[in-house]
């Protein structure tokens, strides 16, 4: 990667050294970063990338920003994460797995993890434990939500990071973006949807394609989960259907406990 000097309004811009890591995940978020060929060169020239297994072979342990995909499911991952934290000035959790545990944390639903391990791996047991988000092990500076992350959002975050601008996220629910796209409400079409309580920023990607939201970006600020539950009931959906969605990516963990206590079939 050529080290072309970048300037912003005539002022040289420092290129932070960035490293990309993955823990338990599908690596789809990192793939998203490499997907947008049209802006890939500009994206790469904002950063000096020193570690990106999916894109290059060279490696270095000196970096300013660590972008981390995946959740923590093994002790060695936890240790590795602590080392990364000690080296990086800014630690970015990237995607639902890193932010909330993601789809992986579904296994936490089982009370008996030993039984699960036996069912999945039989006699060839591997070292795996309860799934945790990065923030359960180390302090996280920035979270980029979504399963997968949205490339445009990462580009915006990185641009603002490099220019020293503030980074802000929508705090309101997906409905706002869904309506802005003039979609027909999925409840009107007879589908359940977590849009009313899930953090926006995805541009209502799934609802626009007539797939009800599963909450991959986690809760909006102060979500009215109780009211959504009532709405689900009124539309003929059960608590179990609501829980399936709330538990899918792990972002709603704090609301799930309360709901389970009072859930009806």
């Amino acid at each position, binding site marked *: 990667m050529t080290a072309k000097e970048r300037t912003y309004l005539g002022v040289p811009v420092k290129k932070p050294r960035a490293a990309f890591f993955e823990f338990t995940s599908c690596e789809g978020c990192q793939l998203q970063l490499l997907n947008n060929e049209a802006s890939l060169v500009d994206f790469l020239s904002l950063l000096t990338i020193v570690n990106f297994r999916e894109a290059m072979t060279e490696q270095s342990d000196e970096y300013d920003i660590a972008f981390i995909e995946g959740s923590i499911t093994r002790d060695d991952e936890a240790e590795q994460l602590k080392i990364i934290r000690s080296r990086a000035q800014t630690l970015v959790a990237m995607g639902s797995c890193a932010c909330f545990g993601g789809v992986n944390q579904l296994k936490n639903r089982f009370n008996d993890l030993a039984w699960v391990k036996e069912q999945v791996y039989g006699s060839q047991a591997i070292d795996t434990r309860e799934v945790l988000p990065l923030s359960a092990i180390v302090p996280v500076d920035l979270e980029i939500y979504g399963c997968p992350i949205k490339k445009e959002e990462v580009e915006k975050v990185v*641009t603002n990071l490099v220019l020293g601008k503030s980074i802000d996220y929508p705090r309101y629910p997906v409905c706002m973006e869904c309506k802005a796209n003039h979609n027909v409400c999925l409840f009107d079409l007879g589908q359940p949807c977590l849009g009313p309580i899930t953090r926006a920023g995805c541009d209502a990607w799934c609802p626009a394609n007539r797939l009800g939201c599963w909450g991959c970006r986690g809760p909006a600020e102060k979500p009215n989960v109780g009211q*959504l539950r009532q709405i689900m009931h009124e539309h003929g959906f059960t608590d179990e259907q609501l829980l399936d969605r709330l538990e899918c990516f792990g972002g709603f963990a704090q609301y799930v406990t309360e709901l389970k206590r009072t859930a009806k079939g």
Partner: protein
Amino acid sequence: MLFRVFAKDHLINLYDILAVNHIVGPMSKGFDRHGAPLYDFDFIYDFAELQLHYPATIHSLKRFVLPPRETLCTFDLQKDGWQKHVDYNAYKPTVYFGLHACDINALNKLDKVLTGNVYPDPYYAAKRKNMFIIGAGCTPQPFCFCKSMGTDSVLHGFDLFLTDLGDSYFAEIHSARAFAFISSLECREPRQSEHQRFMEVAQERMNLFTCHVDTTDLTKILDLEFQAEVWREWGRKCLSCGTCANVCPTCYCYGIEENVDLGLQHASKTRHLYSCNLIDFAQVAGGHNFRPESHDRLKYRYYHKHRGFVEAFEESLCVGCGRCGQSCLANITVPEVIASVRGEGGDHA
């Protein structure tokens, strides 16, 4: 105002004359879970798509004059400054075919805010000036309360207004260009019997209104009931999702966002329509949020529509289209909220 009558099967001729422009009108958007047809405003490319006898649309036509997201200007960044490019994003005249009185009144109200002040909004004005509006009579739906808001008929802000008389359309002509278009159709001045029929149709429509909002002394009542418990009850239901503001034909609040392109050579300023129900609507620099509670935000939305605007313009900012209540998953509707504030209705929350 001039009046003309033309046979219904000539409507397609009017459409064809106007079709050199973009045409926006009500069109079918499938069916809901109960099998009821859904309609929305969209670009029409074929006369057959135009559903002039639609009951109501899900969204208003606000997106054509105040898009949810609009790039206001772009910048080419240079070493010692920048070049700014402004684009009002209005390129072609657009015909709005078949607006109900409520939606035309909504545009008239938006005009008061966005063009009738010291600093008119050029992005809105550019689109607004490029409109040719054909109104169409409607059938009041169970959720329509325009009659209570005084917006069930429209006096200005349209070029042409069509009322269905059965086998012909009664056209109210309100602009010279509309007269020119209508004159190229086979039409004639209405006969006395058609005057009669026109008034009968208007009366029949009046009799169909079932939903009402009592606006008597509403500004005062809202002041008196500022601390009423009912606001908290509605607040507990509210999802703070902004759906009401999005479907509302007169909500115009927005935020501005500036972004630098990835290449650091260009930047843009974008306007996003916002909603006063969203959690950070009243959050200011430094982080303080003046309205962190959902019930406060919901209340202020009602105060803006039914009190603040009335004091400023002697009319409500609500046109009674009922879209907000229809779209609200939590079933928060204007007639029920106002009734509860007036101490009527009771069991709502």
